[in-house]
């Protein structure tokens, strides 16, 4: 198996799906000759031509809306939002349209579209190039939201998203793009959307997380292993709809739960995870349900002092796991 990084997994999934299905095409700002501002679409313009790798005008509502129209016709558009922060102008198209097309037409019309966007901080991106936007959509029936943590998951889930018969939001952690590497099989594979994944078995404390934070949790767990604290780690992978069963199993296993997200605390989708646990695992719990998250400020600042203060990191998680273990 080859070791590739997170963004290479994105690129490779796109390339394979485009090669395999002529209906698949990519649209977005700077995805063409430039290959995307992060280079996620690098080489696709050269390989598949201008008509399947479309540089659009600077207009996110049109990027989503044109994609939706093409998807209703029967194409398989993969739209890129240059930064997740800039998905905001497209919210009406995504929530009012993409999410509701199958439902409102009583299954007559469908919208098999993927929207990719880099999210997350730790890249000196300041307020508008660092946000986590999943909680904006993680209450919208009709959407699926995928947020993978490893190159393996990225590739298998992005291919699944493109083939899905319904709209999928696919959020990629931009700090993970070149930081996170991992093994990916040469052969073709697809992973199931909607299924969480146990990334580490453990017995003392359960951590439930996703995206870049998953890696911070893995690092924290590794260090704590030396202290004799065993951490069970569940990677949500699909954050909407949540894999309830997996959350219940993971929480029940240790009875001590830490929910970790880089997002602001109040109203993050970890509230939903807590609610599931509070409903189904109450009598299995040995400690209060803990959430570790960003502070409730609009987004992370540019200056390194403040960015660091806001960002999640292994140390914060390590401390929280230790506190729970000792509870």
């Amino acid at each position, binding site marked *: 198996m080859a070791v590739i990084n997170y963004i290479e997994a994105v690129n490779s999934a796109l390339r394979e799906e485009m090669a395999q299905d002529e209906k698949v*095409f990519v649209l977005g700002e700077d995805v063409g000759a430039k290959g995307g501002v992060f280079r996620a679409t690098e080489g696709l313009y050269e390989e598949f031509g201008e*008509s*399947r790798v479309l540089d*659009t*005008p600077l*207009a996110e*509502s*049109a990027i*989503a*809306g*044109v*994609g*939706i*129209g*093409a*998807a*209703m*016709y*029967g*194409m398989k*558009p993969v739209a890129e939002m240059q930064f997740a922060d800039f998905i905001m*102008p497209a919210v*009406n*198209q995504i929530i*009012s*349209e993409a999410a*509701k*097309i*199958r*439902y*409102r*037409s*009583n*299954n*007559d*019309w*469908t919208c098999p579209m993927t929207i990719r966007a880099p999210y997350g901080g730790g890249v000196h991106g300041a307020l508008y190039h660092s946000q986590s936007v999943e909680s904006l959509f993680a209450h919208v*029936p*009709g959407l*699926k939201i995928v947020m993978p943590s490893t190159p393996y998951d990225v590739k298998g889930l992005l291919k*699944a998203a493109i083939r*899905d*018969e*319904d709209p999928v939001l696919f959020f990629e952690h931009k700090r993970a793009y070149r930081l996170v590497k991992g093994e990916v099989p040469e052969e073709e594979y697809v992973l*199931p*959307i*909607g*299924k969480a994944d146990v990334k580490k078995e453990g017995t003392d404390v359960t951590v439930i997380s996703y995206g870049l934070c998953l890696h911070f949790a893995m690092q924290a767990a590794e260090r704590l292993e030396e202290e004799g604290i065993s951490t069970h780690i569940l990677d949500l992978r699909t954050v909407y*709809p949540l894999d309830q069963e997996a959350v219940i199993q993971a929480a029940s296993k240790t009875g001590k739960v830490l929910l970790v997200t880089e997002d602001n605390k109040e109203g993050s989708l970890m509230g939903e995870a807590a609610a599931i646990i509070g409903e189904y695992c109450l009598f299995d719990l040995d400690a209060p349900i803990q959430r570790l998250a960003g502070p409730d400020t609009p987004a992370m600042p540019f200056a390194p002092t403040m960015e660091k203060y806001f960002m999640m990191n292994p140390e914060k998680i390590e401390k929280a796991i230790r506190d729970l273990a000792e509870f």
Partner: protein
Amino acid sequence: MASANYETLGLSSDQVLSMYESMLLARKIDERMWLLNRAGRIPFVVSCQGQEAAQVGAAMALNTEEDYLLPYYRDVGLVLHFGMTAQELMMQGFARADDPNSGGRQMPGHFGQKKNRIVTGSSPVTTQLPHAAGIALAAKMEKKNFVTLVSFGEGSASQGDFHEAANFAGVHNLPVIFFCENNKYAISVPMEKQSGSEHISERAAGYGMPGVTVDGNNPLAVYEAVKKAADRCRNGEGPTLIETLSYRQTPHSSDDDDSSYRTKEEVEEAKQNDSIHTFSAYLRECGVLTETKEKELQEKIKGIVDDATETAESAPYADPETTLNYVYAPKGGDL
């Protein structure tokens, strides 16, 4: 009315007669809806009255076997021509399970019927314009020769999606017709408070496409403009913005009382140009329509509307539990 003779436009007498029939059918369905609403038998109606000529003129210029239509809520005339039946419309009015648009899930006026290439629409205005550009983009990518027509009110042209869609179509030279039915009001807001320009069509130049304003009470003028735009589409010459001028003859919907923002006199005066009457007069003038024929037509349509009403009213609602269906693909999906 129409100064141009229908024959010079390449239309046969049968065709203009069928246009008139569609206009009349649209009007009669609409009038029935109001009666049903006022009698408490259906909860809501939103009208085409005053816009039938524009709608039917446009539909006649399209190929209803292959073109795509993204109508807005007043487009009874357009969807009828594209194959939706009076009965289906009534099923929607009564929110019955057999409503082909949504199975009773959406309010009346939210059209959609895949087999007739009538693309499902929603309530937030103007979202359908980018969709139309997307379908036209697909046509271009797939080298298909169909035309996509998307309609909307003049108020809806104030939304950002109008701009983004028109510009996208302009840049990519897409085979799409932006069809603006300017009926002078957006609920209570008149055109002067809606648009910085006198005409919506003046915006076309900003997207590199032709823009025309035509008399929306004249189905032949509308036909001519849409035909030309459709030909441009099929010849690879790109999009066109067409604005039709007419007047909304009813309140905005059955929930609206228009007396707070316009006078009865204004409405009455506008009705002088009611296309149903002026086109009927024109067809008689041309000898295409006679008094007897008109009577026959009126009776035939009454029969259709009666039957549709009866069938729809006695049809069942969807089962309550079906509320849960079709959030995602029924099976094979990953969830």
